[in-house]
C-alpha cells in the first residue's frame, strides 16, 4: 500500500490546513489558473488562427481531402496534421470545431486533438534539447498508437452512429480580402464561442488541483520500481493543463532524474494531450456513454504503454527516498501568507514567469478576444457566412488586383523555403537555449554529480556526467548563434571542463572514489572558470 501513500501521506506538512487554511486554498487556485492562462496564451492564439486559416483559406472541401474523409487513413492523416501545428490542448479545441464543421469524422478529429498538443514542431525541438532522441522517438511511437488507435476505434464504434453530416459544406472564398475577413472573424469568435465554456472548465480543473492537491504530494514515490506511479500520475494528469513546451521540460526532468517513464508518458498523453475541456466537448456532442468509452480507452492505452515503458526501458536510478520538485507547479502552494493574499502578489508571481512569447501571446489573445466580443455583440451586422457560400464563389471574379497578385508554384515554393528556414532558425534558438539557462541547468546537474560521487554511485555519476556534457556541448553554439563569435578562451574553458568530467568519470568507473572526491574540486574549478567566461 506504500505505493499509494504519495497521495495520502496525511502526516506531511503539505496536508496541514488543507481545509482550514482558506487563504492558501483560494490564492493557490488563483495563482495556478493565472499561470496556466499566461502559459497557454501563445498556443491558444496559434490554435484560433489555425482554425481561421482552415476555414477561410484551406476550405472545407480541401480539409476533407487532406484528412481523407471516407477513407480508413483519416486518423493517420490527422496525426500527420497534428504534428505540424504548434498548439496546446486548449488551442486544439477551435481547430477541432472547424474540422467538425468541415464534416471530418469525430474519430479523426480526436486523433488530431490528442496528438497536436503533445507532438508539434515546438515541442519536438524543445524535447530534443531535453530528452535523448531515442527516448523521444519511443514516446512519439506511443503517442501515435494511442491517438491513431483511439481515432480508428471511435470512427468505427461511435462516429458512424452519432456523427451528423454538415448542413452546408462551406467553400473558402476566392477573393483575398474575403479570405482574410473569414480568417479574422473565425479566429476572433472562436475565443468567445461555445469553446469558452471548455476553456473555463479546463482552467477550473487546474485551479481545483492547485487548491486541493497537497503541496509535496508528487515529490516522492513516482519512481520506476513503483508499479502505481503511472496510475497516480494519470489520476493527477487528467485535470492538469500543461503546454507542449512545459510537458517536454517535465518529461526531460523525469528522464534526467531517473523517475518513472510510465508516469512521464501518462503526463504527456493525459496532461498535455487531453483536458477537461476536450472531455466536455465530447460529452456535449456525443453524450456521457461515448465520453466514458473515450476516457477508458485513453487511460487504458496510456497506462499499458506507460507500464510497458517502465518494464522494458532500463532507466531510472531514483530511489524511494529521493524526491523531485518537478511536479510542484501542479500542486497547492505550501503556504500563502496573509500579506500575500491579494491580486498584487498574484501579478508579481505571474510576472516572474513572463517570457517574450508569453507577453506577445497574451497581448494578441486580449486583442483577438476583444474583437471576438465586438463581433458577437454586432451579431448579424458582421456576419461572414455569405462569403463561404459555394454560389458566391462561382460568381466571384478570378482576376487579381496588382497589389495582390496570384503566385506561381515556384514563387510559393520560394516563400515556403523562406518560411521553413525561418522556422529552423527559431528552432535553433530553442534547441540551443541562452547561456544563462544552460548554466542554471548545469548548476543543478553539477550538484547531482557531486552527490553521486559522495555516495559512491558509479552508474548515477556516469548518467549525470553525460547530462552535464550534453549541456556543456551546447554552450559554445548558443553563444555563436546569439553573439556571432566565440573567443578562444571560451572554447578552451569548455574543453577543460569536458576533460575534467572525463577524468572524474574514469576514476569513478575504476572505483577510486577517494581520488574522485578529490577531483570534484578540479571539476568545480574548471567549471567556475568556464561560467565566468560565458557570463
Amino acid at each position, binding site marked *: 500500500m506504500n505505493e499509494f501513500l504519495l497521495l495520502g501521506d496525511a502526516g506531511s506538512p503539505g496536508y496541514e490546513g488543507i481545509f482550514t487554511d482558506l487563504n492558501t486554498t483560494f490564492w493557490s487556485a488563483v495563482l495556478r489558473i493565472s499561470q496556466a492562462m499566461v502559459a497557454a496564451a501563445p498556443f491558444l492564439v496559434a490554435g484560433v488562427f489555425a482554425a481561421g486559416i482552415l476555414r477561410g483559406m484551406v476550405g472545407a472541401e480541401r480539409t476533407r481531402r487532406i484528412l481523407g474523409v471516407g477513407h480508413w487513413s483519416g486518423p493517420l492523416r490527422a496525426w500527420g496534421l497534428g504534428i505540424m501545428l504548434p498548439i496546446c490542448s486548449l488551442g486544439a479545441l477551435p481547430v477541432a470545431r472547424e474540422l467538425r464543421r468541415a464534416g471530418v469524422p469525430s474519430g479523426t478529429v480526436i486523433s488530431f486533438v490528442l496528438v497536436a498538443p503533445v507532438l508539434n514542431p515546438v515541442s519536438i525541438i524543445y524535447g530534443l534539447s531535453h530528452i535523448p532522441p531515442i527516448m523521444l522517438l519511443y514516446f512519439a511511437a506511443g503517442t501515435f498508437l494511442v491517438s491513431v488507435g483511439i481515432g480508428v476505434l471511435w470512427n468505427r464504434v461511435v462516429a458512424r452512429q452519432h456523427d451528423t453530416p454538415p448542413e452546408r459544406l462551406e467553400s473558402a472564398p476566392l477573393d483575398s480580402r474575403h479570405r482574410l475577413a473569414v480568417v479574422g472573424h473565425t479566429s476572433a469568435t472562436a475565443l468567445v464561442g461555445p469553446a469558452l465554456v471548455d476553456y473555463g472548465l479546463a482552467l477550473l480543473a487546474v485551479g481545483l488541483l492547485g487548491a486541493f492537491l497537497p503541496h509535496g504530494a508528487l515529490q516522492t514515490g513516482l519512481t520506476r520500481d513503483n508499479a502505481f506511479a503511472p496510475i497516480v500520475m494519470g489520476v493527477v494528469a487528467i485535470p492538469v493543463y500543461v503546454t507542449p513546451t512545459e510537458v517536454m521540460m517535465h518529461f526531460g526532468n523525469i528522464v534526467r532524474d531517473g523517475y518513472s517513464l510510465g508516469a512521464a508518458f501518462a503526463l504527456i498523453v493525459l496532461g498535455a494531450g487531453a483536458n477537461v475541456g476536450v472531455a466536455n466537448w465530447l460529452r456535449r456532442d456525443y453524450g456521457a456513454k461515448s465520453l466514458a468509452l473515450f476516457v477508458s480507452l485513453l487511460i487504458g492505452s496510456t497506462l499499458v504503454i506507460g507500464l510497458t515503458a517502465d518494464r522494458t526501458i532500463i532507466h531510472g536510478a531514483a530511489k524511494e527516498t529521493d524526491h523531485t520538485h518537478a511536479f510542484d507547479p501542479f500542486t497547492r502552494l505550501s503556504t500563502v501568507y496573509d500579506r500575500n493574499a491579494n491580486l498584487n502578489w498574484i501579478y508579481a508571481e505571474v510576472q516572474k514567469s513572463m517570457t517574450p512569447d508569453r507577453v506577445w501571446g497574451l497581448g494578441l489573445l486580449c486583442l483577438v478576444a476583444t474583437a471576438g466580443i465586438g463581433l458577437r455583440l454586432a451579431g448579424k451586422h458582421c456576419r461572414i457566412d455569405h462569403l463561404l457560400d459555394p454560389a458566391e464563389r462561382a460568381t466571384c471574379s478570378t482576376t487579381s488586383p496588382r497589389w495582390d497578385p496570384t503566385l506561381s508554384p515556384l514563387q510559393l515554393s520560394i516563400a515556403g*523555403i523562406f518560411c521553413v528556414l525561418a522556422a529552423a532558425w527559431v528552432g535553433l534558438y530553442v534547441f540551443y537555449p541562452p547561456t544563462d539557462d544552460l548554466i542554471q541547468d548545469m548548476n543543478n546537474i553539477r550538484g547531482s554529480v557531486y552527490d553521486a560521487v559522495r555516495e559512491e554511485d558509479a552508474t548515477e555519476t556516469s548518467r549525470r556526467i553525460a547530462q552535464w556534457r550534453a549541456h556543456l556541448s551546447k554552450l559554445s553554439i548558443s553563444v555563436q548563434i546569439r553573439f556571432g563569435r566565440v573567443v578562444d578562451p571560451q572554447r578552451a574553458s569548455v574543453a577543460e571542463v569536458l576533460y575534467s568530467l572525463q577524468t572524474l568519470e574514469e576514476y569513478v568507473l575504476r572505483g577510486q572514489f577517494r581520488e574522485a572526491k*578529490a577531483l570534484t574540486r578540479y571539476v568545480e*574549478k574548471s567549471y567556475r572558470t568556464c561560467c565566468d567566461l560565458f557570463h
Partner: protein
Amino acid sequence: MKCINVVIALYLFAVGLLVAGCEQATSTVGVAGVESLEGHSHKHGSAHAHAHPHAQGSPLHGGRIVAIGHSHHGSEETHYHAEIMPIVDGKIMFHVLTDNKAGQSQLVRVAATMIEAYVDPLDKETARAYEVVFSSEEHDRGATFVATVPEVLQDCQRMSVVVPKIELGGQRLSFSFTTAAEDAPALPKKTTGETST
C-alpha cells in the same frame, strides 16, 4: 504537390541539421585505464580500445614507480612513469620518466613549469582534498616537480595525490599516487589507489 514535397524535404533537412548539431561535442584527448602489474588496458576517448603490456620502468632516484600513461606517435608509443619520492621536509616530489629503446628509464622534460594537483590525507577517515601546485625544479622544461604540503596537513604521514592533468607527448594524462613521510611505515609496493589515465 511538388511544392509540398520540397517544403517537407527542407523541413526534415533542417530538423536533421538540428539533431546532428546537438551531438557535436568538443573532443577531448585522454585515456581511461586500469593498471595492472603487466600493463594496462584502456579505451581511448577518441577511437580505439586496446591492451598493451609495457615495461614498468626502473627508478633513477630510489623512489617508487607509478605509470602515468602513454602517447602515440604514428605506430610508436611512448610510455611515461612518475618516480615518487617520500615526503621530506614537508615536500612531495616526483620525477617524470620514460623508457628508452633499451627499456631503461630516463628523465622526460615537461613543457609545463607548474602542475596542479589535489592532496588528500589518508590518515583521516573522511576525504578532504587540498589543492597544491607542483613546480618544476628547473626553470624551463624540467623533469622534477616539487610541492609543499599544505600547512593543515603538516602532521599527516600518508597522503593520496591526484594529478588531474599533465601534458606529455601532446596528450593530456592524469595519474594518482600515494606517498608517505620518510619515517612513516613503508607503503606497500603496489597500492590500489595508484593509477594512470
